[in-house]
């Protein structure tokens, strides 16, 4: 019965999203103004899945024996699909690298500094300030420091993700109830063993919440980094479209990114689900 109920909830949710898509379509009929000839202010779905999707062919940089769009390859659904696929893969690569590096360093460093109460407090205070720095507004600084190539973007994403995971570890360790640690100690566990058999598992639920937030932040960071200077990726599609007022292309990219974000959040939750079967 519970299962069928949550199934019902999901159906209502899907219906609500469909209704939202319908409202969009309705708006496209009500506001037919165009910014650029042929590009409506509110691009309806019939435009988005045809002309807009085709136009992604323009971002094809060549490969598989198909020359780049700039070399005169005519737009086609096949090329548009390849273009979307490879630009997405570029963004995925940066995001995945940044997420793993930043998350890994943040987690390890957080644990290392939490081995002692003193080091935890020592980094905790400046961390509060560093976390208050607006991440996305720091993109120009990171470009200056690490360049606008892949390296700079990965470092930026890693920083955004790393700060979140690091903070969650630093905050979570002091909150682990002392009774669990005491219990392990009275059973004969050494300090180190208590740390990795009691403290580390106990903070994982909090790290999971942080990781889910970090996925969202990671997408924003990846897009932002690409937006402010990349030769490929979804962010570059957005910035190139914006420059010419192609709202429809931006809209299509937004829909694609929402789907990607949902999938990647689900993946991270799945990953933690195994570790947290007890919780």
């Amino acid at each position, binding site marked *: 019965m519970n299962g069928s109920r949550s199934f019902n909830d999901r159906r*209502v949710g899907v219906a*609500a999203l469909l209704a939202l898509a319908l409202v969009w379509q309705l708006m496209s009929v009500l506001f037919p103004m165009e910014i650029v000839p042929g590009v409506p202010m509110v691009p309806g779905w019939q435009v988005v899945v045809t002309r807009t999707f085709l136009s992604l062919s323009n971002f094809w940089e060549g490969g598989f024996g198909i020359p780049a769009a700039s070399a005169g390859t005519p737009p086609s659904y096949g090329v548009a699909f390849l273009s979307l696929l490879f630009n997405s893969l570029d963004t995925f690569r940066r995001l995945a690298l940044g997420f793993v590096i930043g998350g890994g360093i943040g987690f390890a460093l957080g644990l290392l500094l939490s081995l002692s109460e*003193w080091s935890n407090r020592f980094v905790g205070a400046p961390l*509060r*300030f560093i976390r*208050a720095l607006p991440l996305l507004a720091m993109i*120009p*600084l990171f470009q200056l420091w690490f360049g606008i190539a892949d390296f700079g973007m990965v470092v930026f994403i890693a920083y955004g993700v790393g700060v979140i995971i690091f903070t*969650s570890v630093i905050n979570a360790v002091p909150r682990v109830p002392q009774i669990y640690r005491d219990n392990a100690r009275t059973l004969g566990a050494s300090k180190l063993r208590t740390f990795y058999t009691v403290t580390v598992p106990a903070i994982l639920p909090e790290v999971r919440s942080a990781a889910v937030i970090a996925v969202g932040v990671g*997408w924003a960071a990846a897009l932002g980094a690409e937006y402010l200077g990349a030769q490929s990726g979804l962010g570059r599609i957005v910035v190139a479209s914006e420059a010419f007022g192609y709202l429809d292309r931006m809209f299509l990219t937004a829909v694609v990114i929402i789907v990607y974000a949902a999938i990647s959040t689900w993946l991270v939750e799945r990953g933690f689900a195994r570790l947290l079967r007890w919780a």
Partner: protein
Amino acid sequence: MNATVTARRTTPSSSPRPVRWRPRVDVVGLCGVVAMLGVWQAMSVHFGRVVPSPLTVANEMAKNFISAPTFRHYGIADAGYLDAILYTAGNVSMSMIAGGAAGIAFGLLTARRRLLRSALDPIFLTLGTIPIFIAAPFLLLWFGISRFSAVAIVAIYVATIVYAYSQRALYNLSPVYEQYAQTLGADDRRLFWDIMVPGTLPEILGGLRIALAGAWGLAAISELIGSQRGAGKVIQSLANSVDVKAIFCVLLLLGVVAAAIDALMALVISRVTAWNRAGGNDHE
């Protein structure tokens, strides 16, 4: 008779709490802050060209705080950092009020209505996932480069966060309080003002605090993408001319103001919800 005040409660929630590690003035934490400044200084010695020293940044801040004639070279008004941060703070406040009100209203409305909840949850989730780098240009093209657009963009994200917190707050409020109030004679109006509002306040305020922390960065970005004033606009103009010490100034100012207001809000929350053990301090 044990009529003395004890902090002990014999409810299941009385599992031993972790000992708080932070005393009022945390000397160790203070040392950490000093160490951070030291690292910064060391970095500036090494990478002088791209990392200005703390002193350089402080000088720049002092010189251009009230008015900054050099800004005119970058094509922006010559008002100083103060004007930029005040403009951004104004945008943030308006977004918090508009987005917060919408988030609280929809969150409370959906908390006890399953059908409405399963309909609105995915919509708010979707809204919250739209990357600001796409949402911002959309609103700017629809409504023009105006303060309204800048505020609306941030308000959307504030609303999605506050929505989730408000909904959970009322959803988790034990029905025993409402039943008890009813048996004591409370009517619907009293149930709302005396039970639901105070009972959900800590979690809603916690959500507002988290939304506020994010709002500064979002406001800066929306200004960076399309505005004539504000911290984001200054960053954008200066980034093009590679003025690192000025970028540092704006970022630090944003960080300091955001951290200060966050601390102030934490204080207000712990006062307003003095009855609550968590006191709003544990919302991270």
